[in-house]
């Protein structure tokens, strides 16, 4: 019977069309992103961050220019590529923002509450942290991510982050792995990296912080986690908490070796 074979051939012929339709949507989205990348508003944040870094502020009237981000006091170039990491002075694994809080308190004399009171910009109130993060991250542009997981506390951070990544909870039964545990998936039209696959992690983890057009401001990895937990029907994760930093160390293990393209540009 020729008919079934014809039917199958017809169906098979349609498959590349369906795939092509998907491809052309992806291509158009990529073309749009390329166009936008030439005018990244994150540039404005980098400039403001550099100014904030060098301005004397706070009760001690000091700048952040002596801040140790892991490569020695005042060394900004390359520091972001090696964060998070363990710090001897605080005996804690810290990410960029946590370290900025440390320096704002020890060098500039702010209290911890003052330093942490405005982590994320709203249209009515700009956050200094986003500008500072943009500046510091930009100073590692083009370098390979090289987050150390060597010190016992760094290794513990990885182990905890791994547990948290798979932790299912709340009314949606969601874990990070629910969206980020498989290749080739997307939520609505937003592609989702498989964060335990270096092929995805190396390309995506390294584009944070980024100017998010939908938010009208630069957002950092701290905000990304806060935003993820919002969608996962969890409450607000504490800014610079151990859970947030441990998750970053976990993700960094798979992202290490990727080229830093921050501050990036995203929807």
């Amino acid at each position, binding site marked *: 019977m020729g008919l079934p074979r014809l039917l199958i051939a017809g169906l098979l012929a349609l498959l590349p069309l369906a795939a092509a339709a998907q491809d052309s949507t992806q291509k158009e989205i990529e073309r749009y992103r390329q166009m936008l990348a030439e005018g990244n508003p994150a540039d404005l944040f980098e400039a403001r961050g550099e100014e904030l870094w060098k301005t004397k502020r706070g009760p001690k009237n000091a700048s952040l220019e002596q801040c140790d981000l892991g490569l020695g006091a005042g060394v900004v170039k390359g520091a972001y590529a090696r964060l998070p990491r363990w710090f001897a002075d605080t005996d804690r694994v810290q990410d960029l923002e946590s370290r900025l809080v440390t320096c704002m308190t020890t060098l500039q004399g702010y209290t911890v509450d003052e330093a942490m009171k405005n982590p994320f910009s709203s249209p009515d109130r700009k956050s200094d942290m986003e500008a500072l993060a943009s500046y510091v991250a930009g100073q590692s542009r083009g370098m390979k991510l090289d987050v150390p997981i060597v010190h016992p506390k760094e290794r*513990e951070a990885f*182990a*905890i982050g*791994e*547990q*948290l990544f*798979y*932790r*299912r*909870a*709340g*009314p*949606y*039964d*969601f*874990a990070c*792995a*629910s*969206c980020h*545990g*498989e290749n*080739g*998936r*997307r*939520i*609505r*039209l937003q592609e*989702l990296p498989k964060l335990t696959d270096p092929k995805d992690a190396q390309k995506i983890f390294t584009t944070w912080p980024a100017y998010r057009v939908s938010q009208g401001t630069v957002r950092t990895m701290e905000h990304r986690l806060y935003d993820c937990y*919002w*969608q996962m*029907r*969890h*409450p*607000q*994760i*504490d800014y610079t*908490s*151990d*859970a*947030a930093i*441990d998750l970053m160390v976990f993700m960094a293990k798979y992202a290490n070796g990727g080229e830093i393209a921050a501050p990036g540009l995203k929807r």
Partner: protein
Amino acid sequence: MRRARVIVFAAAVAATAAMPGCATQPPGDDAGARARAEEVFRQSFTRGNRQMAARVEQQDEVQKLCSAWRNQPPKDVAEKIEQAQMATIQYPASGKLMGDWRQGEKIAQDGYGLRFTDPDPKRANGGNCYNCHRISKQELSYGTIGPSLYQFGKLRGADEAVQKYVYGKIFNPQAFLACSNMPRFGHNGVLTEEQMAHLVALLLDPDSPVNK
């Protein structure tokens, strides 16, 4: 001689443990990391919504198991989960499993509810279905975390057995697939009976755009 028997016994136990389908150690269970992670979790959600924090701090049995097995439980664990979850499914007392597909489409599009920015208790939760699924032909902004549901009713018909399956799947997806990524919308109190019936209609009603 005793030592040899002990060695043989130990080898036999190890061999059994390595057989597929038998419950061995979950991958996520190293040296107390899970307990320490619970403590870190508890200490990291302290300054936001306390009611929501209390809810997520407590994992139920299925959430604990699926976390430990990283959503790939061995066969015997999976079967136990599916049996237990099947027992939780409650069908509407009225027996009416198909509602209005137009309402279903609205529910499928709507992501409102249960986030820390959703304060209005009078507004119904959405089903968020398009985040993960392709559903109607017209909606191009769909996700691919779950399979496409386009033509669902057309391919399977809409008799009572299919209706019961779809309603049950939405109520508790883990009754059919242990550690499924899909939320247990009925069991967890996300959607009401009426809402789930509208979603059944969205998928099965011959007039629904899903089946056109």
